[in-house]
């Protein structure tokens, strides 16, 4: 294989890694939008909080003398999921539930307010500096000749991609097979009717927020380990990118979120690899605008019929 193909594949692999994490965060947007039709603007902040809690747990556990990396990561992940879920649940309870019958604009402004509030709450509580964590999992796979052209994929990149796929499979099974999953789908169709059939839609919505927050916490943990840095501002841009991914794939559709995330990740990585990294965000946002103009329902989404 020629060198340029190796380079291309390397960029694709890098793009798939970033794309996987966008997809994990995008699930939160897409599920909430699918069920109550609002953009949970504060979802990116839940991801940021997930990373902070993971770091706190990792630092705390290693200070207690636990040094088995699997145990360490496992416990930290559990703690992070619990706390992030509590945030997801409380955000819905405090900022969105009272507004469920209001107009979309009202709920969206409340969500933006929540996002600004959480970001600044963390800034005041933990400081605005970057908090860094040394890398725990080192090394990677090498394809090709070590001296000449090759592709290098680190273990951490593999872990990110595999975890994402596992989460997606698990979530799809949950939605299609479980009783709660069926209730979720029912709510997405018609909340009023679901209530009439004796399903408490408030519980379903709460579960949706908790699932979204848990996946955001998983993404926070993975990216925290991968990049090793957290600050209060990472949630905003990550949330925006993930939302773009959700819209790209068709908001409301779970496979769409996965697809959208991967497309976005790869296109960013190719922009960085073949053009210049400073226009990465411009490409991401332009992609969003173009998709919305020409395919407002996204790649895998269903066209929405406006009901009167």
């Amino acid at each position, binding site marked *: 294989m020629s*060198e340029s193909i190796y*380079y291309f594949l*390397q*960029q694709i692999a*890098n*793009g798939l*890694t*970033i794309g996987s994490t966008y997809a994990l965060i995008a699930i939160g947007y897409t599920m909430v939008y699918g069920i109550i039709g609002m953009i949970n603007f504060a979802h990116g902040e839940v991801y940021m909080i997930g990373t902070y809690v993971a770091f706190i747990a990792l630092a705390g556990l290693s200070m207690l003398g636990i040094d088995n990396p699997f145990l360490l990561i496992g416990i930290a992940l559990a703690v992070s999921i619990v706390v992030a879920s509590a945030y997801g649940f409380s955000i819905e309870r405090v900022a969105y539930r009272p507004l469920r019958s209001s107009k979309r604009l009202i709920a969206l402004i409340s969500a933006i307010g929540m996002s600004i509030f959480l970001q600044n709450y963390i*800034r005041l509580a933990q400081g*605005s*500096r*970057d908090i*860094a*964590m*040394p*890398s725990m999992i*080192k090394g*990677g796979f*090498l394809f090709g000749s070590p001296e000449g052209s090759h592709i*290098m994929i*680190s273990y*951490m990149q593999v872990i990110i991609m595999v975890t994402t796929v596992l989460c997606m499979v698990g979530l799809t099974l949950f939605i299609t097979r479980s009783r709660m999953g069926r209730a979720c789908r029912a709510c997405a169709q018609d909340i009023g009717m679901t209530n009439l059939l004796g399903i408490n839609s408030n519980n379903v919505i709460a579960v949706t927020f908790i699932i979204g927050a848990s996946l955001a916490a998983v993404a926070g943990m993975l*990216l925290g380990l991968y*990049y*090793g*840095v957290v*600050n209060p*501002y*990472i949630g905003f*841009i990550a949330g925006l990118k993930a939302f773009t991914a959700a819209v790209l794939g068709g908001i409301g559709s779970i496979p769409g979120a996965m697809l959208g995330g991967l497309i976005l990740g790869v296109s*960013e*990585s*190719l*922009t*960085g*690899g073949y053009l*210049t*990294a*400073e226009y*990465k*965000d411009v490409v991401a946002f332009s992609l969003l605008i173009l998709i919305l103009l020409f395919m407002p329902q996204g790649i895998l989404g269903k066209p929405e019929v406006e009901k009167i």
Partner: protein
Amino acid sequence: MKSIVKKTLIGMSVSAALMGTSLAQADIKIALAGPVSGPVAQYGDMQFIGAEMAIEQINKKGGVNGEKLVGIKYDDACDPKQAVAVANKIVNDDIKFVVGHLCSSSTQPATDIYEDEGIVMVTAASTNPDITLQGYQLIFRTIGLDSLQGPVAGRFVADSIKPKRMAVIHDKQQYGEGIATAVKKTVEESGVDVVMFEGITAGDKDFSALVAKLKRNNVDFVYYGGYHPELGLILRQSAELGLDAQFMGPEGVGNKDISAIAGEASEGLLVTLPPSFELDPKNKGLVDAFEKKNQDPSGPFVMPAYAAVQVMADSMKATGSTDAEEVAEYMHKASFTTPIGDVKYDEKGDLTSFNFVVYNWHADGTKSPAK
């Protein structure tokens, strides 16, 4: 309703006026402008403790021309919009001497006002060359320029490293891009081949695309203009993706956190830093004074801020005047002995010399001079 506005605003102006008069008229007021709040407040602190220490020590020795110096803090939060408001307030409060501001983007809009209103300003932290390029008479600094640091780094690279294929990366910010451009210019003059010159987005976390590109271009030396969080991540991802190159950065990357982010990968990083003034034996007494107050004298802006106050005070003593234009004129001519060494100004108000030293960074967050 608008009457409420008016009342509030009049109330404000009255309180501002009261604040102005509550100080004894005989004191010489020095405004200390910089971020008290906001994300870079920690750097503002360095400037404030340095300046306050200088004021305290000068007063202890009898003040200036028999009058006491009084430092008054003004908060610009490193926001250009608030910097203009602060500058106007300083004019209002009839203060003729300013130490500040911190961020170049705040200093720049404020200089216009100071020059116009006859106020002497000495910044201890803003390194952007543009600030003194406007032909101002009253604007000075006690810190080296980005355009000085770049050539130092560039000459070191050209003379000691002699890379075959070099890349220059920057973060598209005022500071980083300025230094990166200066480095590129210097090394190219010495015949070093710069194969990549590219910007990244500050605050970004993923640089795998960039690292792959560096690898593809067979780069053996990377100069990065910017701050530590991004370079830390680039180093970390380079190590993971198997890029084997030597890295170098300006003082903005010389922060302990870079070792925490990059771990082992930060070993051997080259950094240009101002000499550590706190290690200079001549400053022993001063360092003790800081430590007695439980303050850290090692911040990069502490000693320059001290020097800024001292230079102004010395000039006031020498001219026996507190007239801004006279003091500034003297500052342009004279030379001063300060904790940052001998200070002498060129006609732009920049230091005629400010040393940068190349250090080897280590994975435990320490540094040692590079040969």
